[in-house]
């Protein structure tokens, strides 16, 4: 055991930090990809089944929307524990990175779904009208016209989502998933070593900046305005 001092020791903390960064990236990226894609689908379903939508179905929309509203307000730290039986059923474990990713994906789907729905509603319905007038199927108009048209804002939305997912991954540290959150709490807070906490915070800030920068760059490339 190291003495409880306020310092940063590369030999000791360095490898721990690298592992933590790796775990965080794994959790965040896997969650963003799976949750983001499923959330895109969910969001498309929300958009399409809205009143006046391409596949308007009030009942379906009500159910889909209700589920989102049900899960979103639950604080993640509580959700992660409440969902444990389901997590075990799906991933076979309640500990570690894999177990953390499952509830993270669920919450990310819900957040992405609303984000996608909002961005599609805000997109110009004129393009759907034009595509339909040219003989496009509803599906084609949705996937090949509306989604590409809304791509810029969607990318920015995903960059925004990154922060939320990072936040969740830190909390997931609490159930032994590791990552930067776990690193900051166990080696910083618990041992009165503020320097370690600050380093973890610094790394998180850098990650967020990079993600936002990537998002902005990509969005600019697809926007053409």
């Amino acid at each position: 055991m190291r003495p409880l001092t306020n310092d940063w020791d590369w030999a000791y903390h360095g490898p721990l930090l690298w592992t933590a960064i790796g775990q965080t990236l794994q959790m965040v990226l896997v969650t963003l990809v799976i949750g983001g894609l499923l959330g895109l689908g969910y969001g498309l379903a929300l958009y399409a089944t809205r009143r006046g939508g391409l596949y308007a179905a009030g009942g379906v929309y009500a159910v889909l929307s209700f589920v989102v509203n049900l899960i979103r307000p639950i604080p993640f730290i509580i959700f992660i524990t409440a969902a444990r039986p389901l997590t075990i059923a799906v991933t076979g474990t309640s500990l570690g990175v894999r177990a953390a990713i499952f509830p993270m994906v669920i919450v990310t789907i819900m957040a992405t779904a609303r984000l996608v729905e909002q961005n599609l509603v805000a997109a110009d319905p004129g393009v759907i009208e034009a595509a339909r007038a040219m003989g496009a199927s509803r599906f084609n108009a949705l996937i090949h016209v509306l989604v590409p048209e809304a791509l810029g804002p969607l990318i920015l939305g995903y960059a925004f989502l990154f922060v939320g997912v990072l936040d969740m991954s830190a909390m997931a540290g609490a159930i032994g998933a590791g990552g930067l959150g776990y690193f900051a709490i166990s080696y910083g807070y618990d041992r009165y070593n503020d320097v370690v906490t600050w380093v973890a915070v610094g790394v998180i800030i850098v990650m967020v900046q990079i993600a936002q920068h990537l998002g902005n760059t990509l969005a600019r490339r697809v926007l053409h305005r």
Partner: protein
Amino acid sequence: MTVEPIITFRGVTKIFATGKDQLRAVDDVDLDVRRGEIFGVVGYSGAGKSTLVRLINMLERVDAGTIDVDGRRVTDLDERGLRALRADIGMIFQQFNLFGGRTVARNVEYPLRLAKVPKAQRRARVAELLEFVGLSDKARRYPAQLSGGQKQRVGIARALATSPNILLADEATSALDPETTRDVLNLLRRINRELGVTIVLITHEMSVVQYVCHRVAVMERGKVVEHGDVYTVFANPRETATRRFIQTALNYRPSPEIVARVRERHPGRLVVASLADTGAGLDVSALTSGLDASASVVFGGVTQVADRPFGSLTLEVAGAPADVDEVVARLGRVAGAVVDLGTAANPLPDVRWVEPRDSEDEVATR
């Protein structure tokens, strides 16, 4: 000349349910659009013009009645049939509705992709279309980098990609300045003449009708209140709505306020003559020849409608009373319709004047 209709409406009604109320956006319309013509649809905002035209390619479904397009009963088509129909009907829009994330060329290519045209043919067709609308050099630009007129040209190229027989234009020039409007209208004329495309053109500007349309329908509260040959409708408007439209488009007839001002300088007998079907125009000197009277034009104008002279002239006639009467009588024989406004001392009302709509019941034109 009787030409077979390409679009036929019979008893067509479209109802929108807005809350508890039901709105008859299109109300029991019978109408024929002839093959190869440019057919105008005019009316104030909310009259049902867009709805009527969107029924043609079934962007809206009818609640009653039938529509036949090019031999197909479109009101019976299912979703699959509709998609085939729509490939044969081009449509352009007031806000252009271009795909902002695609280049000009890819916008024009989209309907060809939908029609599963092979890539090489798509390329050739896109190049041909851009050439036709004069935008070959803009193929790789994005819509946001184009002017309004250029955007509408892209819209037109895209609408023509699959070589439709019919082009629907919903206020296609309403977002453009007058000069650009003229360019786009000229392009539509060319499409009509060179490609034989039947065009149904919605507008709220009578000047657009005057410039490009062969026939016109006037809509009011979901009904087609008047329709026919553009010149006939302009020359003999039967409905108040139509008269008002023409009056605002061609403000050659003096309003009562203008008449009052004209009288200050011209106290003599004022006569308003409509110039329609006057053949060689109005020979003013013939009006007074051999008479002890003079006639001078104090207000008005003459323009071309459907390539024929059309307008209104207000004349002051002065001289010996009997000769003045004779001038007015001669005028009545050569002009379309003559209204005697009397003299400053003995004024008469303009019986053909139509009051403009109250600004209150006028729905804003966005």
